[in-house]
């Protein structure tokens, strides 16, 4: 039986990827951030997952406003790295796990989550930056990756509670998969940030700390946060944190928080990184 062995919450700020790609990750601006990511990388290496289900959003690269799926799951054997307007990131091709991905598609849809299915799709920094942060600069990614893309670009994104329930359905589907696989789930994006308007640069560390505490100890409380509350209190783009709730839903009732790191600023954004181990389901 496949099982979920870990959960990772990770911001996906493009500048983090650019710092690694351009060799500026050891300069004084970036050193404090990258030093803080080392324990997460070590934790994940020890966990040795076979597959990651990576919940993220596309930023007008694979998808445009032409068609906007709320939840999309990538079933391909491989996903090329997107050219986001200045050439693709120099990172390895992302290899999928079609068999588990199709199992997820079938189970999630029959469990009332109407996934869009992507047989071909490039992946952008929303997916590759969390991989870089948690795996480092590698020649090939150490595990297969199933992209699960959530719309947070066109309002309204799915609600926090809906994302949490999707996570719970992912857990049921993974545990129903016959092959022994070690699976980790990523929830990416956030934390507080606003990229637009006269309020650009908004950061709310108090909200972010509350959210990190809630992910560890009381996700039910976080599912009650309304979209307006996210945008008001964590910035208009902080609403991405609904994707953390999808990851958290997949981890079961109780978790052990193995690691937490929070850093301001990474470009315009407050970055969070959290590693969770599932407890016993009740």
């Amino acid at each position, binding site marked *: 039986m496949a099982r979920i062995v870990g959960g990772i919450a990770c911001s996906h700020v*493009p*500048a983090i990827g650019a710092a690694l790609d351009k060799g500026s990750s050891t300069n004084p601006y970036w050193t404090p951030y990258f030093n803080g990511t080392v324990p997460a990388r070590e934790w994940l290496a020890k966990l040795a997952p076979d597959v990651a289900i990576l919940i993220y959003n596309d*930023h*007008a*690269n694979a998808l*445009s*406003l*032409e068609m906007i799926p709320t939840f999309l799951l990538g079933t391909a054997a491989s996903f090329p790295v997107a*050219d*986001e*307007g*200045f050439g693709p990131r120099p990172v390895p091709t992302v290899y999928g796990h079609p068999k588990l991905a199709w199992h997820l598609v079938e189970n999630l849809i029959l469990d009332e989550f109407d996934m869009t299915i992507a047989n071909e799709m490039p992946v952008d920094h929303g997916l590759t930056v969390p991989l870089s942060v948690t795996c480092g600069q590698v020649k090939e990614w150490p595990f297969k990756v199933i992209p699960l893309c959530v719309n947070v*670009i*066109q*309002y*309204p994104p799915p609600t926090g509670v809906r994302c949490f329930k999707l996570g719970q359905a992912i857990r049921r589907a993974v545990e129903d998969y016959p092959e022994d696989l070690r699976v980790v789930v990523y929830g990416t994006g956030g934390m*507080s*940030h*606003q*990229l*637009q*308007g*006269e*309020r*650009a*640069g*908004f*950061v*709310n*560390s*108090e909200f972010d700390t509350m959210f990190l505490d809630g992910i560890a100890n009381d996700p039910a409380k976080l599912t009650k946060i309304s*979209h*307006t509350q996210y*945008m*008001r*209190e964590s910035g*208009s783009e902080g609403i991405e944190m609904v994707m953390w709730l999808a990851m958290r839903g997949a981890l079961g009732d109780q978790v052990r928080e193995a690691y937490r790191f929070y850093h*301001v*600023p990474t*470009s*315009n954004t*407050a970055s969070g990184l959290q590693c969770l181990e599932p407890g016993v389901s009740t």
Partner: protein
Amino acid sequence: MAAPRDYEDIPGTYVYDAERGRVGYHLNMFCMSLNDAENRKAFKSDEAAYLERFPLTPEQKQAVLERDWLGMLRVGGNIYYTIKIAFCDGLTFQDVAGMMCSMPKEEYAKMMLQGGRIPTAENMSKSGAGK
């Protein structure tokens, strides 16, 4: 059930909702076209002519030509799309963020280094309805 647009109470924020999506679609699809290197070249060589390929309103065209970043948001621009014009110009997200809040680049960068724009009564709510 129509969603309440109570987020309009958040100062300095342009939520890309159904209202803006309805008027901004073509503007944003123009921006999307700049993902292609050939299109970027065509746009840079004659911006006004390139814009004619898209059914934009005069206000949208003007906002693009003037690089009025806030103006683009007001006429239906989505920041994840309009930023592609900035990338085409060789600007960074932080450059544009600074321009949207009328702060010199250095001042904006300093604000971020010091922890960002922290919550205040003024930036949380227009009406005082926030906390």
